[in-house]
């Protein structure tokens, strides 16, 4: 049988049990909503404007660098699995791969894009 079936069971049970706990809280808790209670919490002050603020573009740069590195490391896992049985050539391939990867990081760094301005 497919081993992923068991992983799927973990997903299902992992959703059912927290859902059960939250449902229990919903069943036993009081339900007395009022406009003040349901207003957005801003340390007791009346909320100003809407909550979906526009945020710093800097976050996007970090997410971008992350995306590229994430994909590259995924390439490295099959390489690492086979490393024990391969010659020096394969090791050097991987090292070249990582060096190209680091070049990107160095570029971003040198251009001052990793600074939290």
């Amino acid at each position, binding site marked *: 049988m497919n081993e992923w079936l068991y992983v799927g069971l973990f997903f299902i049970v992992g959703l059912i049990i927290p859902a059960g706990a939250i449902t229990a809280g919903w069943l036993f808790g009081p339900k007395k909503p009022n406009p003040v209670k349901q207003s957005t919490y801003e340390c007791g002050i009346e909320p100003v404007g809407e909550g979906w603020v526009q945020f710093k573009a800097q976050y996007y*740069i970090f997410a*971008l*660098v992350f995306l*590229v590195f*994430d994909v590259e490391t995924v390439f490295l896992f*099959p390489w690492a699995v086979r490393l024990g049985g391969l010659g020096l050539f394969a090791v050097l*391939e*991987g090292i070249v791969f990582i060096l190209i*990867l680091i070049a990107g990081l160095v570029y971003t760094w040198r251009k001052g894009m990793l600074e939290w301005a």
Partner: protein
Amino acid sequence: MTGEQLLFLIVGAVTLLSGLMVVTSRNLIHAALWLVATLFGVAIVYTLLNAGFIAVVQVVVYIGAIAILFIFAVMLTRKEMRDQGAQANSNWWAGALVAAGTFAGLFFLLQGWSGFSKTAAAIPSGYDAIGQLGDALTSPAGYVLPFEVASVLLLAALVGAVYLAFNKK
């Protein structure tokens, strides 16, 4: 109908429905979250195809990185997210026709092919897909070039994207 087929039909239906939601929902954050559902459905399809590594990579790369990047981008261009105007352009019906035509054409072409309803051979016991993949990616007779070119491609993408997105003061 076997359990596997039933599972495929459910997963496929959910994937396609959330795909439809991606291209129709008004709120772009919702569209991005529906994209996550679609991608997760595709990951389950990979596990049905016994490609466990690809399925995990799908979750790591698509849900963990690409979907997050989409949500960040929507937040950065927020004005349009709350836009209540038309989300589809005036030629949307032509787009729908082209899409339906593409599907019909693909279906017509494929069903005439002899290998269309082929079934898969059983996976031999002890078959190690990740190891095979590692061999294929590193052996000079295999796919060393795509392996290294992917690195260069990503370097180019990183440099270009960071340069574009960086706010020069």
